[in-house]
């Protein structure tokens, strides 16, 4: 146990500190520090000293700052001083060296303290060790990204046969064009104008194939969640391209109804594509399970008011039982034989991370519609 606590100097309490106050604070489950008008620390409670393993004498004044991690030091001091001068409450997180030399994340809340007559006396702060919580949060985030990636991989696998077939279209066109060009060159005089036209077409088909591959690689890449400003219409456009071959194979007529203006939102493009893709693949599955009537899917973007944008994915499937409308977003909820039950829960996680909402409804004419909203990056 570490010695030296305020208890040993009950008669020498500085800065107008009350002995009973110190006694109570020593018994508190958090680490507490007290500073005076000159910003220097004048008192630490027993848990603080136990944590740092240092004596009061070492911690007093600016001594405590020696334990702050060098990468956090400047930020820490800046927050302390600027708030102190304005007499404002502050809250900051930094790494502090423990008695065993390990740096631990600390959540530190500071508030100004005043005498009964209103005289400013300095600050008092309480800190708790949030290291395990932060680690758990980081771990959770890593897991989420991992699961999201697995989900994208599964989506990509489901689409791969259709995409591979779709890639054959530009490749087939390129081959036929090349052979046609060879014939054009054999004529006398050679049909150079047509060859020129053919070469332009070959280039376009090549770009088309490359674009398709790029989209698929985007889905398969492992990414961090990076917020950036993106146009929601672009996201829906890419999904439509990725999805179109699969829709054709499944006999689904896919159409899009998009807002004319740009719809800038702050989100991660790949993860947002994943959300729309998950909703669309769900819808296609829902249509396969029902009688072979007309299978239609519409991807729509629309402004809601001036600062919100909505994306909806509607299908002409069997719809969702009313009592299941909420639970479908729970992890591991699935009605499919081969589903993981993670698609919709991942979609919700991603949308909520971007500050939006996601929900499902049944359409009057039959079928389901999934909607999500996101805040517009630049409200009109």
């Amino acid at each position, binding site marked *: 146990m570490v010695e030296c606590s305020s208890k040993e100097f009950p008669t020498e309490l500085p800065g107008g500190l009350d002995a009973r106050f110190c006694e109570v604070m020593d018994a508190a489950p958090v680490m507490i520090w007290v500073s005076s008008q000159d910003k220097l620390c004048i008192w630490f409670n027993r848990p603080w000293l136990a944590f740092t393993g240092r004596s009061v004498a070492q911690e007093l004044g600016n001594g405590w700052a020696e334990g702050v991690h060098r990468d956090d030091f400047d930020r820490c001091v800046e927050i302390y001083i600027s708030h102190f001068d304005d007499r404002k409450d502050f809250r900051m997180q930094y790494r502090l060296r423990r008695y065993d030399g390990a740096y631990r994340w600390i959540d530190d809340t500071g508030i100004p303290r005043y005498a009964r007559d209103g005289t400013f006396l300095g600050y008092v702060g309480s800190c708790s060790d949030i290291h395990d919580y932060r680690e758990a949060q980081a771990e959770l985030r890593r897991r989420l990204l991992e699961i999201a990636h697995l989900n994208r991989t599964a989506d990509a696998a489901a689409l791969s046969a259709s995409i*591979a077939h779709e890639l*054959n*279209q530009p490749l087939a066109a390129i*081959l036929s064009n090349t052979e*046609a060009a060879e014939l*054009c060159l054999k004529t006398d005089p050679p049909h150079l104008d047509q060859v020129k036209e053919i070469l332009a077409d070959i280039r376009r088909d090549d770009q088309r194939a490359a674009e398709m591959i790029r989209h698929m690689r985007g889905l398969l890449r492992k990414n961090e969640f990076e917020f950036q400003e993106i146009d929601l219409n672009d996201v829906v456009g890419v999904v439509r391209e990725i999805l179109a071959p699969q829709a*054709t194979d499944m006999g689904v007529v896919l159409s899009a109804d998009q807002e004319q203006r740009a719809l800038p939102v702050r989100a991660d493009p790949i993860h947002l594509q994943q959300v729309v893709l998950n909703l669309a693949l769900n819808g296609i599955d829902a249509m396969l399970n029902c009688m072979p009537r007309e299978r239609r899917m519409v991807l729509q973007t629309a402004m809601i008011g001036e600062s919100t944008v909505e994306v909806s994915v509607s299908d002409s499937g069997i719809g969702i039982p009313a009592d299941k409308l909420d639970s479908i977003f729970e992890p591991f909820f699935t009605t499919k034989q081969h589903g993981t039950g993670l698609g919709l829960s991942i979609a919700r996680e991603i949308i909520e991370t971007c500050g939006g909402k996601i929900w499902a409804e049944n359409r009057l004419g039959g079928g389901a519609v999934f909607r999500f909203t996101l805040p517009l990056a630049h409200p009109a």
Partner: protein
Amino acid sequence: MTLVAPVIHVVDDDASFRTAIARLLRASGYQVALYESGDDLLQNPSSAEPGCILLDLRMPGLGGLELQDRLAKIGHTLPIVFLTGHGDIPASVRAIKGGAEDFLAKPVSKKTLLDAVERALQRSEKAREHRERIGALRTLVATLTPREREVFALVVRGKLNKQIAYELGTSERTVKAHRHSIMQKLQARSLAEAVSIAERLGISAAPSGSENT
């Protein structure tokens, strides 16, 4: 080859591929008609001239196999060559069973494509010749009187004049006269030829007249 140039009907939803294959076929000396969907082809039927259909198996809306069924139902006789990106065995089996001439994988090389097109055109031509011959024979048979048709049906079933006379309740001499007239009208030089005509027109299978054995 016939006097009318054969037309290759290309049905594919991919505009880029349509253009490319049309260039190749035209540069190889064929006439080409393009359709962006099965419905497009059904709305513009033109089976009069010889030709063949190059059909994409997989299209939005009316797929290749459905189009094949529809064409068969409305008596469209052009041979169909399927083109597909899938190496889908069930689909190819269905297509071939449905009378497809060939089943090619995309991308397809010029040689494979032109060989298949040539085979399809030859079959189209043969089928046309066959139809024409049958048509000519029908015209000949149509010149027979009802009584002669009755006699003809019995003759090709191998009945003797005596039996025919008995069955039709007439004299053997009359049957002989009918028989002579029939052979002349059908331009048949022997009984075997007459039987062959009847077979091709399906007459011996369903004889008219009395059914006594």
